[in-house]
């Protein structure tokens, strides 16, 4: 990355975030400063607030990591949302069946979730490799199929026989993860998410496989001519990216909801992709972007309560940020030598 880009992009992001928040607060007839203060205390002002932010960040950090792996290898996986749902469904199916042995149940849920996420991206990966079907389209369509499948599962095969709601059987408390600290809902799942992001950063920058993946992403024609197994590396990136998103879905069931219901995801996969774009496909900055989005989400309800600024800014700000970053990147790209 060139020097102007390294400075320009975060500057643009920070400026856009502050400006858009202030503008939205003004529009709502509140003082921008009060709104920011309420947002900050609502996302990190207490144990409960911090716990809420960390809880929300888990899925965002993992799907952002999945997006990073795909973007760096030159594949566009827009299907993180569907892979997240596939992972959640697999975990919800496996968990209650093994409830007798909590440790085994947890391990099986996470493995099943990662495998389901990887499998859910496979049709798109194979179609892209064999038939040149653009993965942007196929992965997005798989999202719709996944959402429909979840809706069918909670009314059919996975439906809890007890109770009136279309939802899967609840995970016993013995299996669910306990809170990390008193007063907050965050669990060890968030640690796992950040660990995955850190490991991905190491994989990409410091391993032979990572160098090959980056080469394929940066220069596909050269990689082919040099003799890198381009198709296999792209397939691997697809599967890894899907596994990370699937893991995010599994952890959502294991740590947060305890069961599958419909609709299950509020766009975690899309937000994770946005975090990766904001973090320029670098795993650690993208994880921090995911954490920031989570803080926005957690703090926005406090902001609405205290100052009347609508909680919807939580979903507006990430969009504005991503657009600002993409624009700044295009500009930096032009001015770079």
């Amino acid at each position, binding site marked *: 990355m060139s020097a102007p880009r390294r400075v320009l992009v975060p500057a643009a992001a920070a400026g856009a975030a502050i400006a858009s928040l202030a503008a939205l607060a003004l529009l709502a007839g509140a003082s921008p400063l009060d709104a920011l203060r309420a947002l900050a205390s609502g996302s990190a002002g207490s144990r409960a607030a911090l716990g809420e932010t960390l809880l929300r960040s888990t899925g965002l950090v993992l799907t952002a990591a999945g997006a990073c792996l795909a973007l760096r290898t030159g594949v566009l996986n827009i299907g993180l949302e569907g892979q997240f749902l596939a992972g959640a469904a697999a975990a919800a199916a496996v968990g209650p069946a093994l409830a007798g042995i909590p440790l085994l149940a947890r391990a099986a849920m996470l493995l099943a979730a990662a495998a389901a996420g990887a499998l859910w991206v496979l049709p798109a990966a194979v179609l892209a490799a064999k038939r040149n079907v653009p993965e942007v389209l196929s992965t997005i369509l798989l999202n719709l199929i996944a959402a429909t499948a979840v809706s069918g599962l909670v009314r059919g095969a996975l439906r809890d026989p007890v109770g009136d709601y279309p939802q899967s059987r609840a995970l016993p408390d013995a299996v669910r993860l306990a809170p990390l600290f008193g007063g907050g809902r965050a669990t060890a799942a968030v640690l796992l998410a950040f660990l995955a992001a850190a490991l991905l950063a190491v994989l990409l920058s410091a*391993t*032979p496989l990572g*160098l090959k993946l980056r*080469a394929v992403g*940066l*220069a596909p024609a050269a990689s082919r*001519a040099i003799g890198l*197994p381009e198709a296999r590396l792209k397939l691997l990136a697809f599967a890894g990216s899907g596994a990370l998103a699937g893991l995010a879905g599994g952890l959502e069931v294991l740590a947060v909801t305890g069961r599958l219901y419909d609709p299950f995801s509020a766009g975690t996969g899309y937000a994770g992709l946005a975090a990766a774009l904001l973090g320029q496909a670098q795993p650690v900055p993208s994880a921090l972007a995911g954490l920031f989005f989570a803080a926005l989400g957690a703090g926005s309800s406090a902001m609405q309560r205290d100052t009347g600024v609508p909680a919807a800014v939580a979903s507006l700000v990430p969009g504005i940020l991503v657009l600002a970053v993409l624009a700044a990147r295009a500009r930096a790209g032009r001015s770079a030598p």
Partner: protein
Amino acid sequence: MDGRRARFRSARDARDAGLALVPQHDLLVGAASVADNLALLDRNAPLFESARARRARVTRLTDAFGLELGRPDDRVDALPVGTRQRIEIAGALAGEPGVLILDEPTAVLSPDETAALFAALRKRAESGAAVVLITHRLAEVFAGADRLTLLARGKTVKACRIDETTAAEIGGLLIASAEQTALSEETPKIFLEGEEGEEPPELPLGAPASPDLNHPSKKSTARSAAGSAVSAVSPFTFEVTRRGTNLEVVGFRPAGSRAKQISLSLSPGELLVLLAIDGNGADTIAAAVAGLQPFAGSVRVAGAALPRSGDPLAFRAAGGAFVPADRREEGLVLDLDIAENLALPAPPGRLFLDRTAMRARAAEGMAAFAVRASSPAIRAAGLSGGNQQKLVLARELAGVPRLVVAIHPTRGLDLAASAAVRARLAGACGAGASALVVTADPDEAFLYGGGVRVVTRGALSDLLPEGTPPSTLGRLMAGLAA
């Protein structure tokens, strides 16, 4: 047009006004049939037309122009490029355009079809239409044109009636302007790279050119082509020469082309230069050998048969090395640094990258190939063209390859860097590799120290005697008799 000012807002406007263009690479609708594509191309086609009438058009055009167009119901994307090109041509001719422009229409045609096309073009011209033919091939110009305009880098070099000039004169101008283009690309860098003192080629330039197995009658030519180089060959190298071949190409042509099949073989230590004007298929032969293009026939590298669909990995696994024509797009990953580029495709280290080994390899490669950069951590994008090319060679020649395929390896480089590149390739051959080099520069052909063959329209000439003057080479490249 026709003495009136014409302004076209779209290709359709132009077509309706009677101007037809046959593009170099066809723009047909791949998922539609031959009959439907021709109906779309024919500007005289009625708005509504029965399937039977559309099919009948295919037969009619096939007969009228002597061009084989495939069956009416064939899907176009399943047809070879040659047939698709003929469909474009027939579709353009069908509309009886007042102005017909053809961009390299004969690249994929057989000689018979070329003759049929020229007869059809002549007929159009005689009926009062203007025909503009864009071509690299001098013979075609003198076979049928009334006037010619020679362009080089967007400027008119010469424009005259055909009877006011000769093929020899135009051939000479063509070669001269090609050289100018090659030189001007990096002229300012001559001093930059030269001032630090280019490493002199430490290896003898003469690599032995062994007798070509497929052409026993050319033995004497091959020996004389190798010339003085043979005396410089050590007895050991000569031993190696007798064992097997590093490259064996039999009945080869690019997939879907109608070019003549070619065969050639290279023994260890042998370097062969394919000399050709761009567009004559020399680079296609080289790229297909390197696994980047599908082909028909058979290609063996060091005994291993390569898949016809094109597989760079199989080429590499057999001991192949490749120096592509476009070092920025295909040779290097510009956003990676020198050490990382040299570490590909198999970076050292098991779990983690062995950065120490990578730095050592980079330092070694940079020294051995005189890559000028302040550190191995410099991105490849920051290097000059000459240094980028030396970096490619450092990577490709590091693994002791059996066969080096190089396309325009000195294009755009200054004289010193070019000499260094040639010395490296000759050096690899001295160590038992074979090399297949494509160049468009007749002055350079014999400097590699190996055999030279000219490629015209995908066909190989015999080995040319060393010392053939560049002017003669230029005429051969242009498809004229020497």
